[in-house]
C-alpha cells in the first residue's frame, strides 16, 4: 500500500482551513501527539470515564427483540447510559483534558440535536471553563429542552440563523468564532469531521466504544459479531463502533444514514447514497451538493443526522468497500423508536433509532448463529415531544 498522505484516509480528509487557523490546528495536533500516550493523561481520562461518564457501558443482550425478529442475536451497546445520555461525552472529556493541557480557558462547540453541546457544557462546568455553543435556530426550537440544559450548565447558547439554521450552519459559525479568538479558545468539534487532526482525535476518543464492545462480545459469546451497526451523520458514534472491528475482516460494518422522506425525494441527508466528492468544512469527503458545488439543504427528522457531509474516514471505508452505508427513512426510524421502547423498555435517541430500524430489516434474514451489535448512541428523552408531534399528539396544555 502506498504511504498515506499526512492527515488523509485514502483520498479523503486533509486540512482545508483558513490560514488564520492553520497554526491552531497544527498546535492541536502537536499537543495531541504529545499527550495521547502520556501515562498521566491516559490515567486521568480513564479515571473520569470510570467515575464520571460511567464506563464501561453495558453490552446488553436484547432477548425480546431477538426473539421477535427470529434471526440474528441482537446486542445493544448502551452509550445512552453514559452521563449526559449519549456517546458524545467520550470525545468531549478527551478534548477538554487536552484543551486544559494546552492552556485554553474557553471552549466553543457546535451542536445539532444538542447532545454534543450538552456534553461540552457539562465538562466545561466540571473543569471550570467558559463555554459557548452554536446551534442552528431551527434545532434550538426542535430541541428546546437541550438549550435550557446547556444554559443550566452555565454555557452561552448562540442560535445560528444563517443558511438553513441547522447543524452545518452551526459548524460554520463555530469555525468563524474560532477564527476570531483562538489564543485562549479550543474548538471542541463533536464529530469525526473537519480538518485534520479532528477526525483522528474524535475517532480515537470514540473508539473506546468498540474497544469495550469487542471484549464484551468475546466474553459473552466467545466469538466476534457478524455485523456492527450505527447511525451516521458526521459519523462519530459509528467510527467509534467500527474502529476496533476494522481489522476483523469477517465483521460487517454498517452505517445507517438519514434518508428523511426518502432518497428519491429532495428531503434527505443521505450523503453516501446521494452525495458526491467535495471539499467543505475543512475536509475532502462526500457531500450533498449541486453541480456547482453549492451545499444542498438537507433534511432529517433527527437533528443529529441533519448534516450534508460525512467524516472522511467513513468516505474511505465506503470507497474501499470495508463498510456499508444504508439509508433509513424518518418513518422507519420513528417506528423503530417506538418498537425498542415497547419491546425492551429502552427509549433510543431518534438518531440511534435509524440503526435499530436497519437491524429490524436484516436480522430476520440472518441465522441464529449470527450476532448483531447496534450502537445505541443516545437516549431518547430529548425526542419524546417531537415523536408525539409526529404521531399527532399535542402534549401542550
Amino acid at each position, binding site marked *: 500500500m502506498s504511504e498515506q498522505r499526512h492527515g488523509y484516509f485514502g483520498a479523503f480528509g*486533509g*486540512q*482545508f*482551513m*483558513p*490560514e*488564520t*487557523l*492553520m*497554526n*491552531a490546528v497544527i498546535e492541536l495536533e502537536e499537543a495531541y501527539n504529545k499527550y495521547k500516550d502520556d501515562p498521566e493523561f491516559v490515567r486521568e481520562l480513564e479515571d473520569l470515564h470510570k467515575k464520571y461518564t460511567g464506563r464501561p457501558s453495558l453490552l446488553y443482550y436484547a432477548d425480546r427483540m431477538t426473539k421477535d425478529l427470529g434471526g440474528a442475536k441482537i446486542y445493544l451497546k448502551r452509550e445512552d447510559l453514559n452521563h449526559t445520555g449519549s456517546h458524545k461525552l467520550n470525545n468531549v472529556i478527551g478534548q477538554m483534558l487536552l484543551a486544559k493541557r494546552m492552556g485554553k480557558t474557553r471552549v466553543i462547540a457546535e451542536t445539532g440535536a444538542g447532545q454534543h453541546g450538552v456534553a461540552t457544557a457539562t465538562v466545561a462546568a466540571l473543569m471550570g471553563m467558559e463555554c459557548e455553543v452554536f446551534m442552528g435556530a431551527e434545532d434550538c426550537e426542535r430541541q428546546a429542552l437541550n438549550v435550557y440544559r446547556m444554559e443550566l450548565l452555565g454555557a452561552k447558547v448562540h442560535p445560528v440563523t*444563517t*443558511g438553513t439554521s441547522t447543524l*452545518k*450552519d452551526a459548524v*460554520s459559525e463555530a*469555525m*468563524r468564532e474560532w*477564527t*476570531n*479568538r*483562538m489564543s485562549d479558545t479550543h474548538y471542541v468539534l463533536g464529530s469525526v469531521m473537519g480538518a485534520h487532526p479532528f477526525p483522528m482525535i474524535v475517532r480515537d476518543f470514540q473508539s473506546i466504544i468498540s474497544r469495550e464492545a469487542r471484549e464484551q462480545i468475546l466474553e459473552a459469546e466467545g466469538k466476534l459479531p457478524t455485523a456492527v451497526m450505527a447511525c451516521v451523520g458526521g459519523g462519530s458514534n459509528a467510527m467509534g463502533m467500527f474502529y476496533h472491528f476494522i481489522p476483523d475482516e469477517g465483521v460487517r460494518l454498517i452505517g445507517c444514514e438519514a434518508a428523511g422522506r426518502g432518497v428519491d425525494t429532495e428531503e434527505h441527508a443521505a450523503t453516501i447514497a446521494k452525495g*458526491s*466528492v*467535495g*471539499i*467543505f*468544512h*475543512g475536509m475532502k469527503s462526500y*457531500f450533498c*451538493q449541486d*453541480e*456547482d*458545488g*453549492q*451545499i444542498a439543504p438537507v433534511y432529517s427528522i433527527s437533528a443529529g443526522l441533519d448534516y450534508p457531509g460525512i467524516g472522511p474516514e467513513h468516505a474511505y471505508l465506503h470507497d474501499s468497500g470495508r463498510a456499508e452505508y444504508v439509508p433509513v427513512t424518518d418513518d422507519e426510524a420513528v417506528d423503530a423508536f417506538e418498537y425498542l421502547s415497547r419491546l425492551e423498555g429502552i427509549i433510543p435517541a431518534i438518531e440511534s433509532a435509524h440503526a435499530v430500524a436497519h437491524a429490524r430489516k436484516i436480522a430476520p434474514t440472518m441465522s441464529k448463529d449470527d450476532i448483531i451489535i447496534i450502537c445505541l448512541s443516545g437516549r431518547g428523552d430529548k425526542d419524546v415531544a417531537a415523536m408525539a408531534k409526529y404521531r399527532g399528539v399535542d402534549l401542550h396544555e
Partner: protein
Amino acid sequence: MSKIKDAFTKGKAFIPFISAGDHGIENTERYIRIMVKAGADMVEIGIPFSDPTAEGPVIQEASTRALSTGVKIHDIFDMVRRLRTGDDAVTVPLVFMTYLNPIYVFGREKFFTLCEEVGISGVIVPDMPFEEKGELGTIAHKHGVEVVSLIAPTSENRIEMIAKEAEGFVYCVSSLGVTGMRSEIKTDIKSIVETIRKYTDIPVAVGFGISKPEQAEAMARVSDGAIVGSAIVKIIAEHGENADQALFDYVQSMKQAVLKAGA
C-alpha cells in the same frame, strides 16, 4: 492577458471585491465597469458559495442574495467574457475569489480552461492553505492562472514558507476573524509586511476590515495596496440597482486615499 502584477503599476493599488450575481449578474457587470472607471486597479469577483465560512455577515448575505437569483458559475464566466470584449473592454486584471468546493465540483480542468479563455488572472481561495495548494496549483498554472496566497496575523513561523512560493500578490489578512468592516485595525501590519518582503519581491496588499479612506491610506502606506469587500457589498445592498454613483464616488475616494499613501 493581463497579469496580477499589472495592478500594481499605477501607484499603490486599490482592489475592490464584488459578489457576482448580487442584485443580478447584469448589475454586477455594470458595477465592475464603474469601479474600474473610478480607479480600481484590479477587481476581485466573488463566485458566491452557499456556506462561505471565512465571511462575515455582509458578504454572507450578498452570497445568499446572489444564489437566490439562480446565478451559476457558467453565468459568471459569461459575464467576464462580456467585460473583456468590445470597445469598452475592461483591461485591468480580474481575479476570482471563491471557496474550493465550487471549483472542485464544477471541475478544475474546465474551470481553469475557462479562466484562461475569458481572461481571469488569478484565484483567491481562503479555505485552501499552503499545505493543500496542490489541489489547484498545477492545473491553474497550466492555464496561466496564478493562485494567490493569504498570510494572516497568526501565520508567524509560516510566513517564510508561504511567501517564498507566493505568486501574483500576497494577500495579507489584517485581522483575526472573518471579513467585515472594523472600526480599528490593531494588528502590526507593518512588521508582518516587512517579514513577507524578506522572502518575496511580489506585491503585498492588505484586506479584511478596511472600509474608510483613512484606513486604506494607512494600510497602503505599509504595503502595496488595499482590498475592500464588505464596504462595497454594503453600498450595493443599500442602493440595489441604483448604486452607480455611490460606487463610483466611493472607489474614487479610496483610490485617491491609497495614492496619497504612495506620494
